[in-house]
């Protein structure tokens, strides 16, 4: 006996439900980061009023993280505004925002990009298949594909240093003390005090990612981390 149309649709819905249910027993790699009192939640405050664009932080990052030529885990974008004689240069330090809702973690199909409880978003080289989805998913353009390992890479707040009680390399290297690192869950920390006592902004708040890099003195016209970036093909 041939199957009727009604049976066909009923069975199709059943199959779809079973397949979806089977697939969704897989986990998600997003985690709930520490709430106040549960543990640290790391963040950075960048006081752009102090930054004068020396790039010491960029160099320190390159050296500490062994970032290959042509790739960048963090950098300082420079922009100019106004016309002579009323010209001003703005500096914007760009690094991974270690988002509260990281789209790179949500989109990773293998769990190579994952988030610690302290909020740091980690990148595992050994489990990355190099699909590039996380790089595409990042609204800030702070991930890249390492040409040596063919895996995605990003700033991780120098987690290896943080775990030993040290600050990230960029923080230590800043000549102007424009970069402050600390525990956002500790109201007595320097970052918490700065956020409480200054108007702070984040990059692309409309993306809904909950970034934890805060800026003081951010110029709205210079706030797009993707603006003006020349495009190169990655081999």
């Amino acid at each position: 006996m041939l199957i009727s149309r009604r049976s066909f649709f009923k069975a199709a819905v059943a199959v779809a439900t079973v397949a979806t249910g089977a697939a969704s027993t897989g986990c998600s790699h997003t985690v709930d980061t520490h709430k106040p009192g549960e543990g640290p939640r790391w963040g950075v405050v960048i006081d752009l009023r102090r930054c004068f664009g020396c790039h010491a932080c960029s160099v320190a990052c390159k050296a500490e993280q062994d970032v290959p030529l042509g790739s960048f885990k963090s950098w300082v974008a420079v922009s100019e505004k106004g016309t002579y004689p009323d010209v001003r240069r703005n500096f914007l330090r760009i690094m991974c925002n270690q988002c509260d809702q990281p789209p790179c973690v949500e989109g990773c199909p293998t769990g190579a990009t994952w988030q610690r409880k302290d909020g740091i978003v980690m990148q595992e080289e050994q489990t990355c298949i190099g699909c590039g989805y996380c790089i595409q998913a990042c609204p800030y353009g702070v991930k890249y594909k390492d040409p040596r390992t063919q895996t995605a890479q990003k700033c991780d707040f120098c987690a290896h240093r943080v775990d030993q009680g040290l600050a990230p390399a960029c923080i230590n290297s800043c000549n102007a003390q424009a970069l402050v690192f600390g525990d956002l869950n500790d109201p007595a920390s320097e970052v918490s005090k700065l956020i409480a006592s200054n108007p702070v902004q984040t990059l692309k708040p409309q993306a809904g990612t909950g970034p934890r890099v805060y800026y003081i003195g951010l110029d709205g016209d210079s706030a797009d981390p993707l603006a003006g970036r020349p495009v190169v093909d990655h081999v």
Partner: protein
Amino acid sequence: MSDATIVYTVPQMLVWDWRVTADLFLGGTGVGAFFVALYADHRFRDRHPEVTRLAAWAAPLCIIGGVILLMAKLGHPERIWMTVEGFSATAPLSWGSFFQALLIGLALVYAIALRGGEDTRRTRQWLAVASVPVALFVGGYHGFLLSAMRAHALWNTGAATVAAVLAFVITGLALVTLLLCMHPRRRDLLDGIREIRWLLGAALLAQIGTLFVWWVSLEWGLAPARDALATANASWGTTFWIGAIGVGLVLPLLLGGAGILAERRLSQRARVALIAVSSLLILVGGYMFRHSVLMGGQLA
């Protein structure tokens, strides 16, 4: 637009290239061909079994071809099994890998089952039941993969998924039609599947409408959407407007319309040639559509 001029910043790397386009294109075409196989098995099984056979084998071969090219783009294709171990419910790629692999299996079994003729008809019907939702998901997934990206305003619209679904219908129908044009019994077959050609025409019109809505939603959208459209247009506008729209949609519609109007005056050979050329243009345009959207979207 910003009043600031960027003096220094770092380059942005394009991560995805033609191989990802090929996966989206071949995967979508394979899904479309699979639906043609299911439809032909239901409608033309007795009169033109060749249609079902051609479409049924074209489907998994296309999808497999796309997957092979995609894996060639991966940094570590040998670790692909980690998508199973590390399956993430929030990752479109996890879902896509799972359902795409499932569809390849189902499509291959379906194609092999066709050899049994009437003996395997009931089996094929149950295979169709299992395959339809999977194929629909895979077809939509190829668009949803991009639509889900908040980071890229050009992609982050519902129209991207709708356009991808229509694209798989269009290129799947076009591929099967082109293959039929090369069959020894092509004249009978093409006359016999006339309704599929009408469906193709309707899908082409629907796609033009969808792309228009997509363009409007960007052009009249918020600043990030407008900027994304302008950036993509600057580099990939020609490929999109002339290749995807002109070559892939408008020209085939015009040729199809001309063919219908001049049907009585055209020889059988000329009609077949017209259909073949239209189908080829649709496939070329379909690829250009995928490529211009993929590459243009990465820029903004």
